[in-house]
C-alpha cells in the first residue's frame, strides 16, 4: 500500500495532440480513486502515463514518495488490469497469476502461497488449470485482477475493466473488486466512463474533461456540489439555466426570478438543480421558486417517472423532472417548486 502523486503532468503526443494538461493528483495509501470522464477526455492516457506506458511530456510521478517518472512499466511498483483483460492465452489460470511473481524472482514457496490465496479470493480454484479461452468474461476479469494482485503492487491501475461485461455481471464484479480492495487494502486508480460505477465504487472521483481535471471529490460531493456545468451534467442528470445575479441570493433566470439559499460565487454562470430535487405543486400555487410548464414527454423508469417539461422560454429547452408515484400525463400543465437550498451555482467551464 502506497501513495501516488502526479504533479503537473502534461502529455503531448508526437502528432502534436495535447492529451493531458497540468494534472495534479494525490492518491492516499489504500484509497480507491476513479478517473471519470467521456471518451477522449484523457483518463486512459493519464492511467497509462502513471503505469509508464507513456512518457509524461512534463511533470513528475511519485509512488510511495519515490520519483518514478523515468522508470519503465516493468520497474514501477504498479500492476494494471486491462480493458480486454490481456490474459496470456497460452498460459493456464494458475500460470497467468504466477507470471509476475515468477518474473520478480519471488521464492517458490511464497509464490505458491500467493497463488493459492488469490485463487481462493477470486473463487477460481476449480479453474486453475484452464486456459483463458475456457473462462467466462467475469472469470477472465477475476484472473486479470488476481494476476495484478499477485505482484503485491503499491498501486493497482484499472483501465475500464468492466466494459466488456454485461450489466448484471458488471455489478457483481464491481462489488467483488471493491470488496477485495477493502480486504487487501491496495491503492487503486480506476478508469471508467460510467458515472454510476464511479459513484458506487470510489472513495474519491476525479472528473476529467479535455485533458484536464474538472473536479475532485467524494462521490457525494461531486453529485451534490458540482463545480462546473460539465460535472453537473456528466454526473447524473442536471438542469442548467443561465442567470443574472440580483444580490442577496436572488437571481433572474429565463424561468423567472428565483431565490437560492447561498448566493452565487463571482465566476458562476449557471444555476443547476437535479431532476429529483423538485416538488410538484398545485398549478395555481403562489409561492417562491415555483415554475410552470407543460409536460412534453414522459418516460416511466420504475422508481420514478421522468418528465420533460417545456417552460415559457422555448430557447431554454426542456427541463427534466423525476417524479415518484403518479405522474402527470403528456400535455398536462404542471407547476413545480425548487427548494432554495437545492439551487447550486456552477461555472460554465474550468476556471
Amino acid at each position, binding site marked *: 500500500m502506497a501513495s501516488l502523486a502526479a504533479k503537473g503532468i502534461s502529455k503531448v503526443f508526437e502528432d502534436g495532440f495535447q492529451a493531458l494538461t497540468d494534472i495534479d493528483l494525490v492518491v492516499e495509501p489504500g484509497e480507491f480513486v476513479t478517473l471519470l470522464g467521456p471518451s477522449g477526455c484523457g483518463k486512459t492516457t493519464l492511467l497509462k502515463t502513471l503505469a509508464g506506458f507513456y512518457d509524461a511530456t512534463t511533470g513528475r510521478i511519485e509512488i510511495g514518495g519515490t520519483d518514478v517518472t523515468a522508470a519503465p512499466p*516493468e520497474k514501477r511498483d504498479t500492476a494494471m488490469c486491462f480493458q480486454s483483460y*490481456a490474459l496470456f492465452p497460452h498460459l493456464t489460470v494458475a500460470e497467468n497469476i504466477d507470471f509476475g511473481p515468477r*518474473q520478480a524472482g519471488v521464492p517458490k514457496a511464497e509464490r505458491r502461497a500467493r497463488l493459492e490465496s488469490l485463487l481462493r479470493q477470486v473463487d477460481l480454484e476449480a479453474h486453475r488449470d484452464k486456459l483463458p479461452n475456457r473462462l467466462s468474461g467475469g472469470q477472465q476479469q477475476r484472473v486479470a485482477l488476481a494476476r495484478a494482485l499477485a505482484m503485491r503492487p503499491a498501486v493497482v491501475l484499472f483501465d475500464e475493466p468492466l466494459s466488456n461485461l454485461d450489466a448484471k455481471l458488471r455489478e457483481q464484479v464491481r462489488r467483488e473488486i471493491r470488496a477485495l480492495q477493502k480486504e487487501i487494502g491496495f491503492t487503486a486508480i480506476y478508469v471508467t466512463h460510467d458515472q454510476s460505477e464511479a459513484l458506487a465504487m470510489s472513495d474519491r472521483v476525479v472528473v476529467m474533461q479535455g485533458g484536464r481535471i474538472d473536479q475532485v471529490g467524494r462521490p457525494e460531493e461531486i453529485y451534490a456540489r458540482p463545480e462546473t456545468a460539465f460535472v453537473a451534467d456528466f454526473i447524473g442528470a442536471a438542469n442548467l439555466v443561465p442567470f443574472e445575479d440580483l444580490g442577496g441570493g436572488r437571481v433572474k433566470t429565463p424561468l423567472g426570478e428565483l431565490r437560492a439559499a447561498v448566493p452565487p460565487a463571482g465566476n458562476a454562470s449557471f444555476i443547476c438543480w437535479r431532476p429529483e430535487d423538485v416538488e410538484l405543486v398545485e398549478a395555481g400555487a403562489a409561492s417562491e421558486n415555483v415554475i410552470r410548464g407543460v409536460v412534453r414527454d414522459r418516460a416511466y423508469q420504475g422508481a420514478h417517472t421522468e418528465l420533460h417539461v417545456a417552460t415559457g422560454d422555448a430557447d431554454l429547452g426542456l427541463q427534466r423532472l423525476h417524479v415518484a408515484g403518479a405522474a402527470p400525463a403528456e400535455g398536462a400543465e404542471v407547476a413545480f417548486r425548487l427548494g432554495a437550498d437545492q439551487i447550486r451555482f456552477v461555472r460554465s467551464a474550468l476556471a
Partner: protein
Amino acid sequence: MTLRRTLTIAALLTPGLGLILVMVGSVFYIAVAQSFGYYNLSGESAFSLDHWRDVLGSKQFGRSLGYSAYIAIISALGSIAIAYPLAIWMRKPFRGSLVVGSLLKAPLFVPGLVAAFLFLNVIAYHGVLNQFLIWTGLTDAPIRFQNDRNGFGVIFLQLWKNMPLALLLLTGAVQGISDEVVDAARDLGAGPLARFRKVIAPLTVQAMQAALIIIFIGAAGDFAFQVTAGPTNVQSMAQYMVFLKTSFGRWNQAAVVGVSLMGLALVGALGLAGLARLTLRGLKW
C-alpha cells in the same frame, strides 16, 4: 455425419484435392518404385534392393546428405533468427515502415539463379568486394570467396532468399498479438528478452514452425545456389541426384537419392518444428 453427406463432401473435394493427390502421389510412387528397380530406363525392370545398397554404401551420398541437412538447418534457423527481430521492430507502423518492409521482402521477387549470379559478381576474385578490400588496404591481394568449402556463400544466398518469407509469416503472427497482452507482460516485470521468450515466441510458434518447414524443405532440395556458388568438394542431394542421372544414366540410383531427399525434408522439417515447440515449452518459464 451421414454416409451420403460424407460422400458428397468427398466428391466435391475430388477436383482439387484429388488432382493434387494424383499429381504428387504419382511422382512419389514412380520415384519410390524406381528406387526399387521398377521403371528402369536402362535395363530390366524388377524388384531390387541393389540401388539402395549401392547408394547408401557410397561415401558421396553420406556427405551429400550431411551437407544438405547442414545447409537446410542453418538456413531455416538463420532466417528465423534474422526475421524475428525485424518482425517485432515492424510490429507497429512507423514513418517509412512500409518502404522498409517492402525492401526487406523484395528478394522474394528475384529468381534464385539471378540472385546467385549477382552474388558471384560481388564475391568473385575480381569482384566488387575484393576490389573494395584492396582499395581500403585491408588486403594486398584478392581473396577467394567463391565456392567456399563451408558453403557460407550458399547459406548467405539461402538467408537472403528465405528470410523475407519468414518475415512475411512472422510479421503477420507478431502483429496478431494484442498490444495489451505485450503491455501486460511488461507491466508484470518482463523485460524485452522475457517478453519475447515467454509471450511473443509462444504465441507465434505456429508461424515459426511453418517458416522452418518451408525454408528447410526448400534449402534441403537446393540445386541452383549450390551449382552456382556452392563448394566444389561436396554435392547437395539435388546436385548428386542429377549427377547420377546425367553422368552415369543411373536413373534408379538417382531415384534413391530423390526418395532420400524427400525423407530428409520430411524428417528434418518435422524435427525442426517439433524442436521449436519443445524448446519454447521449456523456455516458457
